[in-house]
């Protein structure tokens, strides 16, 4: 066996066993009938997919894409200036980059709980505002779409900053000098040179946030409460309390299909997906 084949074998085997095989199983499940106590049984049916056409599930799909889209855009809007700032920080670059990834040292679950303590009616923010007599009733900050988006943006911001930083760092500085030399003011240079040249990196950063946000269930479960059900929560429910594995499988495959169609439609001309 060639050395390079040998080198990729462990990773390829792992991917095959934990991604391709389960995906195949999910695919088969989605065409089967639910079992009485969980699991699946014969006969084969398309009923799981036709159920997804119910407006109830349509609303969940639309909400999921909407929330993931808003989260991705906000991550870019916040992450791009931050990445630009880090690129131009000279010797403090590494310090700032470490700060960006510092939150990863704490579990995402704990950090999400921390947001709950901040946002809830008896939480820190509401208490302080009430003590200062700025408000009299607690602000409803938890268990709504806004809280979910906040949690997602907070959690995924580092995933946009890092690829954007890498893209900006690679940008040929003489192009920025050339723009200034030709009479372009800093804002003009940003929109005419920097952003167009970073477009592939910006697109990659957006996808890196959008796709995991689509399938999220932890953030929406904790910060969204029962009012903000996303596809991730729907799928999770089918495999746990609802005991409808075949419908859960169909829902998760439908999510994948729609996401992939959208990403293909959004990719630039002559470009790869990422």
């Amino acid at each position, binding site marked *: 066996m060639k050395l390079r084949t040998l080198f990729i074998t462990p990773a390829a085997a792992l991917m095959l066993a934990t991604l391709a095989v389960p995906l195949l199983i999910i695919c088969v499940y989605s065409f089967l009938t639910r079992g009485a106590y969980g699991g699946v049984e014969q006969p084969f049916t398309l009923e799981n997919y036709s159920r997804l056409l119910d407006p109830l599930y349509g609303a969940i799909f639309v909400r999921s894409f909407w929330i993931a889209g808003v989260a991705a855009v906000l991550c870019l809007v916040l992450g791009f200036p931050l990445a630009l700032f880090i690129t131009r920080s000279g010797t403090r670059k590494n310090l700032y980059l470490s700060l960006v990834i510092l939150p990863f040292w704490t579990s995402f679950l704990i950090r999400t709980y921390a947001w709950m303590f901040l946002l809830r009616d008896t939480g820190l923010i509401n208490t302080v505002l009430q003590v200062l007599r700025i408000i009299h009733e607690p602000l409803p900050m938890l268990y709504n779409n806004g809280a979910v988006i906040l949690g997602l943006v907070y959690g995924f911001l580092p995933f946009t900053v890092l690829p954007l930083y890498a893209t900006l760092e690679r940008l040929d500085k003489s192009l920025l000098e*050339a723009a200034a030399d030709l009479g372009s003011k800093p804002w003009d240079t940003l929109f005419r040179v920097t952003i167009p040249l970073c477009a592939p990196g910006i697109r990659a950063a957006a996808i890196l946030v959008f796709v995991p946000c689509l399938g999220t269930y932890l953030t929406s479960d904790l910060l969204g409460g029962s009012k903000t059900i996303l596809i991730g929560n729907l799928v999770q429910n089918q495999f746990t309390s609802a005991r409808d594995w075949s419908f859960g499988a169909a829902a998760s495959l439908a999510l994948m299909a729609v996401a992939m169609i959208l990403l293909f439609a959004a990719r630039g001309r002559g470009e790869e997906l990422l």
Partner: protein
Amino acid sequence: MDAILELRQLSKRYPAHHAVRDISLAVQRGEFFSLVGPSGCGKTTTLRLVAGFETPTAGGVWLNGDRIDHLPPYRRNVNTVFQNYALFPHLTVRGNVEFGLRRTRTPNVEDVATRVRKVIEQVRLTGKESRKPSDLSGGERQRVALARSLVLAPDVLLLDEPLSALDPQLRKQVRSELKDLQRRVGVTFLFVTHDQEEALSLSDRLAVMNAGVLEQVGTPQEIYQRPRTRFVASFLGSMNWIDDIGVRPEAIRVSHSAPPGVASRCGTVTRSTFLGSSVQAEVQLESGDRVLAQMPVDGNIFAEGELVHIFWNSLDELRVP
């Protein structure tokens, strides 16, 4: 005297080194002026101080009588041709050439189109307006960089080693084209190079820099024939130093017998090279010094190891402090 660009006591000091030390010079309107020196001598920093990418530690820059060293690059009417050309890869040839014109407050669409067409014609890129820089040859890219700057009608065009990215064959051809272009459009050129041949053949006047200091300013003939320092004498062309007297290789004569009536030195030929239009011989004198002589081909050809006499006309001697 009509100086378009003036540097007065210009200095640039970095924490680690002193890149430019107290430089004063004046570039005349319409002149092809070169800054020449070895790499790291401060010539590119000087250019960047004029362009506005660096701010001087001391001294100032005057353009058309106005002080400009406090202005950002986009407020200075000078434009740069970068060493790597720095063409915008996401824009076509036309997009690159239009870029500066479109940055003005109210670009007149017709005027932009006319000026772009004219300058693209001047640099012979007509028909290639829709190509991207990646689809152009090195020479074509260089012409886009020139066109992009010239279309803005700068007071001074700054060129940072614009020929160094080209292969040697192309370089000589582009060199003469560059000179023609400068004559045709009449723009003042401030040209930075480390290539002494380029500087001598292109410039109306040139300044030789070394270690951040301006060593000498003058026409190519003045500097070549009357170098003021040993550095200038050795940097522009080659120079033999015989007892502190400088003699150019082309002024050295070699013969088998001692010539009557002139002072001569004895030595051994250590190397003899046929260069096509001339012959070069390296002679080791009894003092141990090596002397290079460049002679026309019709003379004698000397073999290595031969004992010879070298001599020169005293008018060709250069006494440099």
